C-alpha cells in the first residue's frame, strides 16, 4: 500500500508540483490550501507524512505543526516544512514546534522524494 502524504501550501502551483512529484513516486497525495484546512484534514485522517509550507494565510505552518503535535494521535507522524531560505532561526522554531525535517525552496522533485523516503518508514 502506498504511503499517504498531505501537502499544505497556499500556492496552488507548488501544491501541484509537489503532487506530481510525489504521486509519480508512488505516493497518494492529499492537498490543503492553508493551516486550517491542513489541520482539519490531518485530524480527520492520519497521514504517513505531512509536507507543509510555513508562511500561509489563516493559520501558518508553525501554528499548525504545534497544534498537530498536541494531538497524541499525531505523535510520530513525520512533518517536513518548506522554507524559502535556510533561515536558522525559522528552522529552530519549526523544529521546536515538532517538525521532523525541512526542505529549502527551490527544490527539485528528486530532493522532495528523497526527503519523503528518508522520513517514511520502509
Amino acid at each position, binding site marked *: 500500500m502506498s504511503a499517504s502524504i498531505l501537502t499544505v501550501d497556499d500556492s496552488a502551483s507548488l501544491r501541484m508540483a509537489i503532487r506530481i512529484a510525489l504521486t*509519480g513516486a*508512488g505516493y497518494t497525495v492529499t492537498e490543503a490550501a492553508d493551516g486550517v484546512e491542513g489541520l482539519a484534514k490531518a485530524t480527520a485522517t492520519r497521514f504517513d507524512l505531512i509536507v507543509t509550507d510555513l508562511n500561509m494565510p489563516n493559520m501558518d505552518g508553525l501554528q499548525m505543526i504545534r497544534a498537530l503535535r498536541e494531538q497524541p494521535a499525531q505523535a510520530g507522524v*513525520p512533518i517536513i516544512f518548506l522554507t524559502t531560505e535556510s533561515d536558522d532561526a525559522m528552522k529552530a522554531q519549526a*523544529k521546536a514546534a515538532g*517538525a521532523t*525535517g525541512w526542505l529549502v525552496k527551490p527544490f527539485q522533485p528528486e530532493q522532495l522524494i528523497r526527503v519523503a523516503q528518508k522520513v517514511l*518508514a520502509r
Partner: protein
Amino acid sequence: MSGEDPTAAFRIEAGELLEQVEQGLLDLGHRLDDMNLVNAVFRGLHTLKGSGAMFGFDKLAAFTHHCETAFDRVRKGDVRATPELVSVILSAGDHMRALVEGDAPEAEGQAILARLAAAVDAAAGGGVAAPVAAPARQGWNLSFRLPPDAMANGTNPLALLDELRDLGEATIVARVDEIPALADLNPADCVVGWDCTLIGDISREAIEDVFLFVMDDMEITITPLAVEEAVAVAVVDGAAPVVSAGATADIPVTDAPVVANDAGPRTAAAARSQGEHVRVPAERLDELMDRVGELVIAQSRLSQLAGHGHDLSLRSVSEEIERLAGEMRDTMMILRMVPVSTLFGRFRRLIHDLAIETGKTIELVTEGESTEVDKTVIERLFDPLVHIIRNSCDHGLERPEDRLAAGKSTSGLIRLSAHQAGGEVLITITDDGRGIDVERVRAKAEANGLIQPGQVVSEDELLGLIFHPGFSTAAQVTNLSGRGVGMDVVKRTIESLRGTIDVKSVPGQGSTITLRIPLTLAIIDGLLVRVGEGRYVIPLAAVEECLELSLEEDLRSRGRSIITLRERLVPFVRLRDLFDTGTRPDTYQKIVVVGTGTERVGLVVDQIIGNHQTVIKAMSPLHRNVAAFAGATILGDGSVALILDIAQLIALSQPREERRLAAG
C-alpha cells in the same frame, strides 16, 4: 516542473544503470577478483532496486533484490564471483530491462532466479575467500543517540539505521546503558543509543546526510576506522584504488583523504553532476536543428538581398550574420554528436554471447571509441554492425583447434575501430579468421546466376557479390547468421545513411569490412542541378563525374539511354522524362554520373548550377513514400529543391531500361 514525468525519467535512468551493470559484469568476467567491479555492479543493482520500488516497479524491485543479495554476498567475500554467476546476472539484466518496459514473462524470471540460486550455491561451496590481496578496510565508527523526542517528532530511528546499512556494510549494536528504570520510562521517548561500524568507501558527508534533520540536537561522534597499513593513506588520491595487504597497524587517519573522491553509493544523479552535464531530450535537439536550418535558409536570402543592393552597412551586417549562422550550424552539429563508445560498448555483450553459442574463444578489441558521430547515425548503425560481427564470429573465426593447426592463438580476435576522416567516419570490423573463400563465393555466384561460369571477374568484384541480394556463403544456416537478413540488407542500411561499405579479405589471415559514414545526416554537400523548371540536389558524395550530352549524341543514342564511358557501358536516365517536365531539352544537356560503389548510372539534367550546402528537410508524411527523393531543401531565394535519392533512382532506372530493351 509539471511537464516532467518521473516514471519516464526512471526508465531512462534504469536503462543507464543496467548498461553500467552490464559493462561492470563484462569486465568482471575477465577479472573475477576485482572488488571495485563487484562493488560497482552491486551499487548499480542496489540503486535500480531502490528507484524501481520508488516509481512503482515492484516486480523489478523484487527481482533485482535477489541479484543484489547475491552480489552483496560476493562483496562480503562469502561467495566467489564465477563466470556462471556473471552470466546469470547478465541474463537477469535482460529480464530487468524487460521488466522496466513492462512486459516480461514471469516464467523467465523464475528460471533465472533458479539458475542464480544454483550459481550462488556452487560459488559459495568453494570457500576460497578473497583470492587476492584483501582491500584495505575503509570505514567509520559511529556512536550516536537521538534526542528523546525524536520519535514523537516523526523521526524513525529504524529508517536511519536502514540508511546507514545502505551506505555500506554496517554492524550496528544498540546501547541500552541509559534506559531508565521502568517507572521513569516514557514509552514515547527514544532512550536507546547505537554504536555502528560502517565499512566501505563512504564520505563523512554521506553519513552526516543520514542524520541531516537531527544532527544539531543529537549526540554523535564519527571517527574514521583505522586503516590496515600506513602506506595506503599516502597512496589514496582520488581514483587510485586502495588495495594493500599486510600487517595491521592502528594508525588513525584524518577524515578527508581516505574517501576524498567517489563517495557513497554512486547514483546516476551524482555521476551527472560531476561533469556538469545537462540532459536534453533528443526531440529538442532535433527541433533546434530545424530552427538552425531555417536560420541558415533565411540568412542565405538575406545575403542575396544584401548582395543585390548597394547598402554597405546592410551588407556588412549580412556578412556578420552569415558567419554567425555558419558557426551556429557547426555548434549544432557538435551537440548532436555522441561518441561511438556508446555503440561499441553494446557489442561486448554480443561477443560474450557469441563466444558461448559458437564455442569459440573470442576477444573484442575496440579502438577510437571517442570518435563522435551524429546520434541518429549511431542508432542506425547498430543493426548492420550486429550482423557483420555475427558473420565474422560465425564464418570468419575458426574453432580453437583449427586455429592452433593454422599456427594462430586459440582465441579469435574481433577488432572494432573508428576514426574520423574529413566529413566521414570510418568504422572497420576486422577479424583474424580464415578470410572469405573467394572460390566459394564464385561457385555460389555462378550457381545463383549472378555471374557466368568462367566469366573473368576481379577478386574485389567477387567479394562485392556478397552484398548482392539473396547471396549467402553459409553452407548451412546456423543460429547466428542466416536469419533471413543478408549482407544486402546491411549494405542498403549503410547506403540509406549515405555511407559506403567495402570488404577486403586475405585468405588465412582474416577479413576487414570498412564502413564510411557521413558525420551527420542533417546537412550535406550537394550538387544543385536544374531539370526543366525545377531544381534538384544530388548528394555530392555520390557524384563521380559530370559530362556533356550534346543534342547530337542524344539523337545518336536513338533513345537507348546508354553511353560509353571509358569503354564501359553506363545506363542513363533522362530526369526530364522521369519527372515529366514537359519542357524541351537544352541544347547542351549534362550527364551527372553517380554511383553507389558497385553500380553507376548517369542522370541527364539541363543545367549544373553548382555546389550547395544543403539543409535536409524531411518530406511530409504524405510524401514519405515517394521514391526517388530523399528529402527537400529550401534555396536562398525561398524556393524548394528536392534531394534525389540515388539508390532509389538507380533501382528505378533498371526496370525502365529493361523494358526499353525488351521493347526495342
